[in-house]
């Protein structure tokens, strides 16, 4: 298409980003070359550095530059509470929305046999080690309320229960400010099943 192989390679390389198709990657490539060469240089450097230096936390598997992430290192965090989440984005959401002061374990996915993702891909060996070695009083399962998330929660729940550690699951139900009339049946039946004594 172009007579500059390098440009073609750049356009192709940008397509590795999620949601970027051929048209967007072409726009990005032209933008960087035409208008923001300095930005492109910075991006290239930071990408190289990030890929080289960011790894996974030894305890919680979240992204970190050090051996242990900031949360696992923090002395004020309650190390007897462990919250299991599917992704770093979920961890951030919980950090921003709740006053949770315990630690996390990031699975980086969920069990999904139909996609070929099994326990080995989620670092459950590290989780088991953590349960055996650390003094944990409660594990909070905060995986998504999808079929795969539920299967993951049940699987981990059993691992935790077998060690006589308290295990809890986040509640599912009617969103705050929602109206029952407009809520989908699945959510509503969950909310109904999970009703609580007042």
């Amino acid at each position, binding site marked *: 298409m172009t007579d500059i192989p390098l440009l073609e390679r750049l356009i192709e390389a940008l397509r590795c980003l999620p949601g970027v198709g051929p048209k967007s990657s072409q726009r990005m490539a032209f933008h960087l070359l035409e208008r923001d060469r300095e930005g492109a240089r910075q991006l290239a450097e930071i990408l190289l550095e990030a890929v080289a230096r960011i790894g996974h936390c030894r305890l919680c598997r979240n992204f970190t530059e050090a051996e242990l992430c900031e949360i696992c290192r923090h002395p004020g965090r309650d190390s007897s509470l462990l919250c299991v989440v599917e992704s770093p984005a979920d961890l951030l959401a919980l950090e921003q929305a709740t006053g949770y002061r315990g630690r996390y374990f990031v699975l980086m996915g969920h069990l999904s046999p139909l996609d070929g993702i099994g326990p080995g891909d989620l670092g459950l060996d590290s989780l*088991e080690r953590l349960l055996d070695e650390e003094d944990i009083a409660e594990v909070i399962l905060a995986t998504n309320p999808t079929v795969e998330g539920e299967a993951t929660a049940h699987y981990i729940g059993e691992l935790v229960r077998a060690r006589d550690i308290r295990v809890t699951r986040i509640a599912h139900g009617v969103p705050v400010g929602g109206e029952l009339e407009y809520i989908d*049946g699945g959510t509503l039946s969950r909310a109904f*099943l999970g009703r609580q004594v007042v």
Partner: protein
Amino acid sequence: MFAPCAAWAMVKMSSPQLQAAFVIHQRPFRNTSAIVEVFSEQHGRLGLMARGLRAPRSRWRGILQPYQGLVLSWRGRGELPTLIQAEIAGPCCLFQGRRLFSALYLNELLLRLTHRHDPMPELFARYRQALLALQDADEATVLRLFERDLLKHIGYELVLEHTAEGVAVVPGGRYRYRLGHGLVPSQAEQAFSGEALLAFAAGRLDNAASRDCARRLMRQVLAPLLGDKPLHSRLLYADYRRRTARSKI
């Protein structure tokens, strides 16, 4: 004079309305869309493009869940028609704990052993029945009977009342199953008992011996159909049992 009718008929054909279906699986596509694999009553298994399904304000997100009875409308031909309507119709099966793994197994079987665009209304009815049964009935029984019926609908019906030679299977006899052939009398140690085979054929797996026979037989028959790619939900379940057993010691 016929042309408009034919064109109208084609449009009608390519946009099925309110078809009973279950979601089998979904995969993310682009930023906010997903490709939803569904099993429908009249059109068999097919992939549908659900635009905006994963967007924050998606109206389908809570609806397009596996094990939820649905009616769906879609438009377009080719490999990936576009979903245009989804409504809840029928029961939502919420599985607790270990039964979730069995439910995932059912979906993986459908995904692996059925072809897209191959209508199987009877199998659809069996799938719905199996999901309902899986809520409280014995899991192994539900799975084995579904496997048996799935095989029948994809063209591998097991004949368990007669041997390959057409001799009636008797409760006291012992048999082995030769793939592509049928039952043959056998005195081998792992041979199936006639009693267990007849119980399986009649759908009565009420004792350990008949369940064991059904499990071994289905494994044997399914193996060549699955090829060298194992069923991940089966591996998951084996791993689950191993880990929970090990940590209990």
